[in-house]
C-alpha cells in the first residue's frame, strides 16, 4: 500500500518539497515509516531535528498522521497500523515575524 510523506520547514532542505509516495507492506505500522525515514535521511538530518542514536525525531518536531498529532514518546502511537493513502506530515515551524 502507498503512504504519503510530506516534509515542511527545515526538513525540505534534506528531502525536497515534493510529497513522497512510499510503498509499505499491508501490515505496516507508523514505526516502519519512521524507520524508512531513518534509513533515508537519518544520516543527514541535523541533531537539532533528529536523534541519531535513538532513530527518532527530536522533541519539538511535529508528526501528524492524517492531521492527528502523534506522540513519539508513546510506543502505542508508533505502533498504529497504517492504511492505504494515509499521509504523514513532518514539520517544525517557528512563529511570528
Amino acid at each position: 500500500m502507498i503512504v504519503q510523506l510530506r516534509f515542511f520547514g527545515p526538513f525540505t532542505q534534506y528531502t525536497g518539497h515534493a510529497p513522497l509516495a512510499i510503498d509499505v507492506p499491508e501490515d505496516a505500522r507508523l514505526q516502519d515509516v519512521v524507520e524508512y525515514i531513518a534509513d533515508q535521511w537519518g544520516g543527514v538530518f541535523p541533531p537539532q531535528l533528529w536523534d541519531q542514536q535513538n532513530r527518532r525525531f527530536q522533541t519539538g518536531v511535529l508528526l501528524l498522521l492524517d492531521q492527528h498529532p502523534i506522540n513519539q514518546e508513546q510506543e502505542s502511537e508508533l505502533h498504529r497500523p497504517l492504511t492505504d493513502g494515509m499521509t504523514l506530515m513532518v514539520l517544525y515551524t517557528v512563529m511570528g515575524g
Partner: protein
Amino acid sequence: MRMKGYMGTLLRVNVGTRQIIKEDLNMQWAADFIGGTGLGVRIAYDEIPPTCDPLGPENKLIFMTGPVTATMLGTSGRFQVIFKSPLTEILCDSSCSGYWGVQLKQAGYDGLIVEGVSESPVYLLINDDQVELRDATHLAGLDTFATQERVRQEVGDTKAKVLSIGEAGERQVPYACPVNDDGRVPGRGGSGAVMGSKGVKAIVVRGQAQVELHDPEAFKQLALDINKRNASNPVLHNLRTYGTSWSMDGRWAISDVPVRNWSVASYEALCSKLGGKSLKENFNSKNHPGCYRCTIGCSKWVTIEQEPYQLDAPAAEYESVAALGTMCQVDDLAAVSYANHLCNLYGLDTITCGATIAFAMECYEKGLLTSADTDGLEIRWGDKDVVIRLVQMIGKQEGIGRLLGQGTRKMAEHLGQDALDFAVQVKGLELPMHDARAGFAWASNYATSPRGGCHLHGMTDFYEESEDPIPEWGFTGKFTRLSDEGKAAMTRFAQNWAHLLDSLVICYFSTKLLTPSDFATLLNLATGSTYTAQDMLVIGDRINALHRAFNYRCGIRRQDDTLPARAMTPLAEGFTAGQVPDLERQLQEYYQIRRWEADGKPSQAALQDLDLDFASNDLYS
C-alpha cells in the same frame, strides 16, 4: 556609579516648550529593570498619568535601548518605545529592529523621552551631543520612505537613521506606527499616532560613540558563540532562506493560520500561495538590508512587476501576509505585498489593519455594514483590490476608512448587535496571526498580555511541543499544544522571557537557543553586575507586575482578561476541530502563579516581594 554597557544619559525633549535636557540615567532603576521595556515601564509609571488622553500633551513617548544595544552581539540593534496606547488606552511597549536604536545609543543616549505638543510640525535631529528641533511643515503628507530620503538630504547625511510617521500618524489613526530603515516598525499600539499628536514628523539620529563594556573580551567570545549557534541552526537557516512567511507553508497543517476572520480552518491551497516558498519562487525574494549585526536574516525584499502591484520594497512578514491575506481570504501574494507596502508608506500596523479589514468584510456579509456606509464599495471576502482600497482609505482617513481606522473594538462598539463577538481583540489590540485553538497556552497568554492581544509578550508557541523548556527556572515537563496542562505556568515563563529580551534589547529569533544563564552572563560581562539565572526570572516578574500595576490604574480588571467569543469557538475542520482551550482554568492558575487578587490587581505581597513598594502604596493606599 555608572555601570558599563550604558551610556549613562537620557535625552528629554519637550516639543512644546522646545526644552532639551540631558539627564543622568537612574542606575538603580537600570539594575532593577535592565533597560528597554523594563526601564521604559519604570519611567512611564512615574511620568505618564494612567488616565491621561493618549493623544494629549500628558502622554509621552519613551524610546529605550538596552545595555547590550550597539555591541557586537547579533541582533542587538533594536529599540523599544513605551507609551500609553490610543488603541488600547493602556500602557504599550513596542519593539523595533533596524539600526535606529544603535545610532541613538551611539549618539550617547540610553533613551529618549519626547513630551509635550508642538504647535507646528517638527522633526528632531540628534547628532551626537547636538540636538535640535527643526521645522517639518514642508514634510507634511509625505510617506515614510519619502520622508527618510528628504530628511537625509536636508541634514546632508545619507547614513542618518530616520524614524518617521506617514499620513496615518499625522492623522492620528490609533494604530499608526513610525517606520525606520526601510520598513522596520514598532508596529503595535499606535506610537505613530502619539508622534502625530505631538507634531513630531520624524526623529533623525546619528552617533559615533562606542559602548564601553565591563569585560569586552569575554563578552566578545560569548557573543561569537551565540552568533555561531544561531548561524548553524537549521530552523533559523530556513528563516534566512524563505523569510518569516515560511511559517505559512507549514502552520496551515496545525490550523494556526487564521482564515476569514478566524472562522475557518487554514487550508493548504490558500496558504501555499502566500507562504515563503511562493515568495522565493515567484518573486525571487532577496535579503533585506535588515538589521544591525543580524546573523539570521529573516527579512526579505521583493521586486514585483505584476500590474497594478508593482513594487520594489520590503516583503511582507508572516503576520502581515496572514492579516492582509488569509484573514481576508485573498490569495494573490503580489496584491498582499502591495497592501503591506502601502501600510509601510502610510505607517500602519499591518496586523490591526488587516484584522480590521477582515472584520469589516464579515460585518458587510452580516449586513452590519452596507454599501450605504461604504460609498458603494462592496467589501467582500477575497477581493484583493478592496483590501488595497481600504488600506488607502484608512491611511488617508477617507470615507469608511475613518471607522476602520478606529480598530475592531471601537468599530464593534459603534456597530452594536453581536459585533464584539467576532471582533478578535483583547483590550482593544487585535490578536496576532496565531490561534489559541491550535496552541492552548495562547489563551492565558493573550488574555493577560500586558499590552493586550499580543504574541510578542510571551512566545508560548516556542514551548508547545517541548520537554523541560527552561530547567534553570524550574520550567520542566512535557507539553503538547492541545492541552491546558501547565499552560498558565508556561505563560508566566514565556512572558518573563519576553520582558528580558525586550529589556536587553535583542531579537526573539536569536534567543531560542539561549538560557537564562546566557542572559545573566551577557549582562554581567556588559555591565559588571552579578546577576544569576534566577535573578532574570525575578526581573521578568517585576517588569510584568509593574506593567500590570500601571494598567490596573488605567482601569483594567479581571473581566478584561478574556478572549472574544470567536477565538473560543471550535473550528469545524482541521487539526483542532472541535477543540478549544479552557481559558477559565488557565486564568485561575495564572492568577495564583502571579499572585494577583480576584479583581486583577497584583497582590500587595507580590509587589513588595518584587521591590515595588511604591506601586504597592499606590494600589493599596
